């Protein structure tokens, strides 16, 4: 008994991060579920989907220090690919008239469709990513931006599988609050675990000093590539969840507006830590929804002779610029939440 206690108490005192991130998130979801408000539940479901996206981006961007604009493209691939595999043949016959016969009859269970969709996103990331991982700085930004535009162009024009620029409809709404919470929490754990794996450590070493990392035998291209694929998979899952929550969408959903939102969340929270990704997502979602409701109140009450739109984005971009100027490492400064604090080590 005493022995057990002697082992248990130091274990309790060890500074931990994950419970402090996961427990509040689950409690938040529980509170929202019990409150029963439909609007609030929708907001929190989207919050957890966005959290998955932000975590996906954090795993690559935060650990490697390389900016990627391509991830919302992978989200789009995950969304469309999973929808193709989850839709019933009848729904496909209506929504996608020119679909290839081989795909028209396929229907997978939701969870498999999500995994297949994310797998395809990861595959695309693996194919286009490998050569890009040599680049860094401005070149990598422009190259990943180019990837986003290429994916967008293909989504808009490949009418056979995406219904072109028009809305794709007829997807079943499988994603519930708890489905998105489960994935979101799983990705928090994944992202936290990933940081500490040998791969994550190598990646962070290459972020701090590429030359020094290379000189001790780290193959930067391969390390970045694996992280890129993994993070694209996470983004693909998020896209699949989003598709099965929104149930009808067009390629425009996976372009610059969403990119801006996700990058804002990550930067405001702080790219360097999982805590930053979580904090940024929570904070920006709260800001976003708060400002939107201000906008809607003004518009509904008709206080102004015109409809107000864009106000939310104006405020968010100002917040982002201020953070970049005064606290470029984000509100968490790249630190993980730890409690109890580490004692004088």
């Amino acid at each position, binding site marked *: 008994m005493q022995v057990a206690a002697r082992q248990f108490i130091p274990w309790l005192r060890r500074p931990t991060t994950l419970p402090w991130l996961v427990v509040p998130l689950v409690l938040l979801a529980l509170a929202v579920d019990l409150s029963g408000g439909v609007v609030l539940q929708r907001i929190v479901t989207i919050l957890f989907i966005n959290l998955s996206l932000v975590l996906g981006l954090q795993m690559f961007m935060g650990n490697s*220090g390389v*900016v990627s604009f391509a991830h919302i493209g992978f989200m789009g691939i995950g969304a469309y690919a999973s929808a193709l595999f989850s839709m019933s043949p009848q729904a496909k016959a209506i929504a996608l008239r020119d679909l290839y016969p081989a795909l028209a009859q396929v229907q997978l269970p939701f969870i498999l469709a999500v995994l297949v969709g994310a797998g395809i996103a990861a595959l695309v990331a693996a194919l*286009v990513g490998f*050569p*890009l991982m*040599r*680049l860094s*700085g*401005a*070149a990598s*930004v*422009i*190259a990943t*931006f*180019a*990837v986003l*535009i*290429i994916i967008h*162009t*293909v989504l808009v*024009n490949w009418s056979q599988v995406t219904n072109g620029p028009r809305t794709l409809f007829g997807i079943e709404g499988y994603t519930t609050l708890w489905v998105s919470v489960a994935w979101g929490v799983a990705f928090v754990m994944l992202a936290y675990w990933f940081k500490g794996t040998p791969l994550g450590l190598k990646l962070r070493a290459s972020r701090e000093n*590429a*030359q020094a990392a290379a000189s001790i035998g780290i193959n930067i291209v391969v390390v970045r590539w694996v992280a890129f694929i993994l993070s694209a998979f996470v983004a693909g899952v998020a896209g699949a969840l989003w598709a099965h929550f929104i149930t009808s969408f067009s390629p425009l959903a996976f372009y*610059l507006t969403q990119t*801006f939102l996700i*990058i*804002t969340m990550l*930067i405001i929270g702080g790219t360097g830590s999982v805590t930053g990704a979580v904090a940024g997502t929570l904070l920006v979602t709260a800001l976003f929804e708060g400002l939107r409701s201000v906008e809607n109140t003004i518009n509904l009450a008709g206080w102004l002779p015109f409809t*107000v*739109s*864009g*106000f939310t*984005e*104006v405020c*968010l*971009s*100002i917040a*982002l*610029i201020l953070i*970049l*100027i005064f606290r*470029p490492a984000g509100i968490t400064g790249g630190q993980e939440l730890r409690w109890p604090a580490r004692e004088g080590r």
Partner: protein
Amino acid sequence: MNQILQFLINALSLGGLYALMALGLALIYGILRLVNFAYGELVMVGGYSLLLLGAGAWPWIIVAALSVLMVIATSLLLERVAFRPVRHASPTTMLITSFAVSTLLQNAAILFISPRHKAVATPAFFTENMQIGELLISKSNLVSLVVSLALLGLLTLFLRRTILGNALRAAADDFVMTRLLGVRANQVIATAFAISGGLAGVVSLFWIGRLGSVVPFVGLTPVLIAFVAAVIGGLESLTGAVVGGYLLGFLTVGLQLLLPQVLLDYRQAFVFAIVILVLLFRPQGLIGGNYSAERV
């Protein structure tokens, strides 16, 4: 023969505009290592200036001149308010700042003006054609061809013959060394932003004139074109940006003639695939310049 002439004029006129756009981007990149996403929004500001100032009874040429001045003022303001505070931060921070500025300006236009297309009055020469022998040439193409060549000429003179111009080229080459030699950073950077704004302003006259309307997202295409042209020519070289611009102009007009419609839809994808290839295999661009990977 006529067809070739026609092709040349169209390609040179489009290429001239593209060259101006690319140059505005490369000038800032060369000095600050800032990839300015907000560059397209300068074109948007030009468009809205044309819209708002054009409501009065002033002749177009005055409205156009005032619009260009507005764009220059906006560019200088952005430098002072948003870019100067992050000047010493990492390139990533600067880049995301410019992305935020771009979103800010777009949504400010949505908020304060309108999310919808607004028709902009354009002078008659934008719609008229001119008959030279057997050639039918649109006057606006001819004007933009001449204006872009004249501007490029003037800019070359400025960059090569004046002290400030030389300081600017030196700064684009090696900013730290230039500062060590006593050139004032603020002055050089402000000049670069002013020139970049002026180029965007002139581009907006023709770009908005061709479209005949302005919308908050109008800057996206110009900034993408500027990216592509600057990368192809070489982001770090001013000559490269101009060459890249003309090359892209020829490529665009050429593909329009040669590619079947099915592939034409994917043109943007092809163009950006070329960008990726250039970045991978010739990161210094086709023209070059003194590109070098960071050394220890």
